[in-house]
């Protein structure tokens, strides 16, 4: 509780108020190990903006550390995962999420591969069915028989 108050005062000192972006905290303030674990869990969902595909939790970059601190400040005040992610999306955009949300245009990321896979399976199935419905091809003429007939003709004519 003391930590939460201190963080709230620090936030007030900077004039930056997350409530203007994501409203009132959805839950009670957190502290100690619960706060640390929850902040780390949420930091794993945020992309380090200066790294290649690394989360804020894993990156050694200074900027990532600053973002981890911000996540911890928000969680300490009682902001839940959705609110913290919304707060970062509001300033960095959807790019900051390591896992794009399954909504709007992002749904194409899930739908298109599924459609392509379904289309591929359907094409293979149609091709297989078409081949099965074709009449059986005539057996190949035996080259041995031809050779034998020719040989016999040549012997007879000799």
């Amino acid at each position, binding site marked *: 509780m003391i930590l939460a108050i201190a963080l709230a005062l620090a936030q007030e000192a900077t*004039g930056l108020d997350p409530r203007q972006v994501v409203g009132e905290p959805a839950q009670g303030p957190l502290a100690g190990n619960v706060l640390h674990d929850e902040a780390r869990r949420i930091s794993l969902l945020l992309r380090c903006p200066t790294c290649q595909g690394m989360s804020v939790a894993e990156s050694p970059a200074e*900027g990532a550390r600053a973002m981890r601190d911000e996540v911890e400040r928000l969680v300490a005040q009682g902001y839940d995962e959705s609110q913290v992610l919304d707060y970062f999306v509001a300033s960095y955009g959807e790019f900051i999420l390591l896992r794009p949300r399954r909504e709007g245009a992002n749904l194409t990321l899930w739908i298109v591969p599924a459609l392509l896979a379904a289309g591929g399976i359907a094409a293979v199935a149609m091709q297989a069915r078409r081949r099965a419905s074709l009449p059986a091809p005539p057996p190949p003429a035996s080259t041995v028989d031809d050779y034998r007939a020719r040989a016999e003709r040549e012997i007879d004519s000799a």
Partner: protein
Amino acid sequence: MNKKVLAAGFVLVAPLVWVLAESFGADPSHIPSPLVGKPAPAFSLPVLDGNGATLSLAETRGKPTVINFWATWCDTCGYEHPLLLRLARTYEGRVHFVGIAYLDKEENLRKWLSSHGGQAFPTLIDVGTSAAVAYGVGRLPESYLIDKQGVIQHKVFGAIDYGDMVRRIEEML
């Protein structure tokens, strides 16, 4: 049949090629800011060597404002600093210029500023880096052009271009 397969393949592949072609050669760190067109996040931060004084965004209202996030450990910031000084002197009294120091120490800031032409505008200390996060700062330097009403009109990634800044500032005056 072959033409149908080719057409279907084209329909599936063309959008993918278009997306890749659009992004080819683009700097991956230049992500469009969702803050452009929205009110700039309010802040009130301590001024470097301001004897405890703070400066808030609200105090800059009524004139265009250029906010520059920088640090002494950022090489590009050294390159653009003379350009910012020149701009600040050119538009003195008509445009607010504010520097926000990101992840830095006051003592380093003083030394750096004295060896890079001094200050033509206040430098604020980003306590806890909350301002940088609120503005979506990724890679330094980054600058934000805020109009008289406090709305972010443009975000500059990397070092500023003097001519481009003059054009954008003139549009906001």
